[in-house]
């Protein structure tokens, strides 16, 4: 039975999915489970994946709401428990909160555009677009405030953004396909 045909989006559903996915973003950041060590002390993050999943499941408003929780948490964490000099930049809400509001909207637009063509493909695209929105806007605002020279930004965007986009795409496809029980032709997901 397809769950999607039965489930209608109610106020309760929107609030709960937003809260729960927000909790997941907080949890991934708090326990550092959402960080994967990468070159030169930098870390790849998958903290934004709950935003993408929430946006794909419940639409752009829920996506923006989860993005807001993610942003507020990263602002709080940078202020109260900084772990590196970069965190000092994230004490500015324009860098830590504002860019995160757009992840969900962009991911949802990508998903909606391609959903009719091929749902797993649309999910992968949502993961990639959502991640790139995060990378580009965060680095862009960092550049605007002059914390890093503009020339230094594209290499960081490529070194961090691309692997993060791939990880986010894999996770989004794996989770949503299993959750919605989408037939992929591959073996059935086991929970």
């Amino acid at each position, binding site marked *: 039975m397809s769950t999607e045909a039965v489930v209608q989006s*109610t*106020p*309760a*559903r*929107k*609030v*709960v*999915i*937003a*809260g*729960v996915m*927000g*909790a*997941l973003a*907080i*949890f991934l950041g*708090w*326990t550092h*489970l959402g960080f*994967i*060590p*990468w*070159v030169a002390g930098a870390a*790849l993050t*998958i903290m934004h994946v*709950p935003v993408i*999943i929430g946006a794909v499941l419940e639409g752009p408003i829920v996506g923006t*709401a989860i993005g807001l*929780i993610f942003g507020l948490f990263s602002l709080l964490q940078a*202020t*109260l*428990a*900084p*772990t*590196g*000099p970069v965190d*000092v930049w994230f004490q500015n809400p324009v860098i830590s909160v504002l860019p995160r509001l757009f992840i969900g909207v962009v991911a949802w637009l990508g998903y909606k555009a391609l959903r009719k063509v091929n749902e797993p493909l649309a999910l992968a695209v949502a993961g990639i677009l959502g991640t790139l929105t995060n990378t580009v806007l965060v680095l862009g605002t960092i550049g605007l405030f002059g914390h890093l020279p503009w020339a230094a930004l594209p290499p960081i965007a490529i070194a961090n953004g691309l*692997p993060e986009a791939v*990880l986010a795409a*894999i*996770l989004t496809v*794996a*989770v949503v396909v*299993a*959750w919605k029980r989408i037939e992929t032709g591959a073996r059935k997901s086991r*929970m």
Partner: protein
Amino acid sequence: MSASEFDLLRTVTLGQYLPTGSALHRADPRVKIASGILLVVAVTATSSLAGLTLAFALVIAGFAVARIPIAYALSGIKPMLPFLALLGIFQAIAIPQNDANTTVYWRWAFITLTARDAVAVALLFAKFSVLVWGISLLSFTTSTTALTHGTEHLLRPLQRIGLPAHEFALMVNIALRFVPLLAQETERLMKAQASRGADFGAGRRLNFVQRFRKLLPLLIPLILATLQRAEDLILAMEARCYTGGKGRTHLVRFRAQASDYAILALVLIVLAATVAAGFTSADATVWRIVSTVWR
């Protein structure tokens, strides 16, 4: 693999609630939240050590009234100390504060430590401590339920212009409630996967593909189980006819007492002094008095 590897939230003191039943615990959460926000704004805005000392005294007084041992709050700040020290050194070395009017304490190669550097580092530490202790005090004395209700009431004016204050407050409350549940779930999953031979220890540093593949059997069931719990909660809420914030009344109604107004007034006065001290020569005056007494 040690047992502590499964223990995910034990070391965090921030965000805990310590019910000691003090007057501060019973105070109106709206007043406490507003005070917290004012504290953050004032501490960020000021650049005066004397002003920060005032704010610090206010926070310490709050701890005394709340009957929470200072040592407990201190333990929360401990893991951040090495990083803070690093930040302090960075601030002293990388940001030159040299001008003709300052005393040079120490000079080596391109590094000069001046009185101004010392003040900058002291400011950094003071701001950080006041912020962390102030916000800890808020969370120690206010339960999550009171925090959400308080936030919702404070945001209510925004509802007039169509912003969903109720939904926002409920969402934040659900998020905060779910974090410990997620920690439990993850511990369960880690143990389950470890018993099947999974290894969550550190792999080779650069091999992020390997690291990520180790995380997948944890993350995917975690997210799916979380969504399942969300479905249960949705069902429970809909069974009780939840339809969102419109026309909703509240079981808890806040009525500010005289003591609440007194707290707010005290906080306002002290923090106004904190900010004002940044614009006057308060620091220089205090410094002169201190150094005279010292001699």
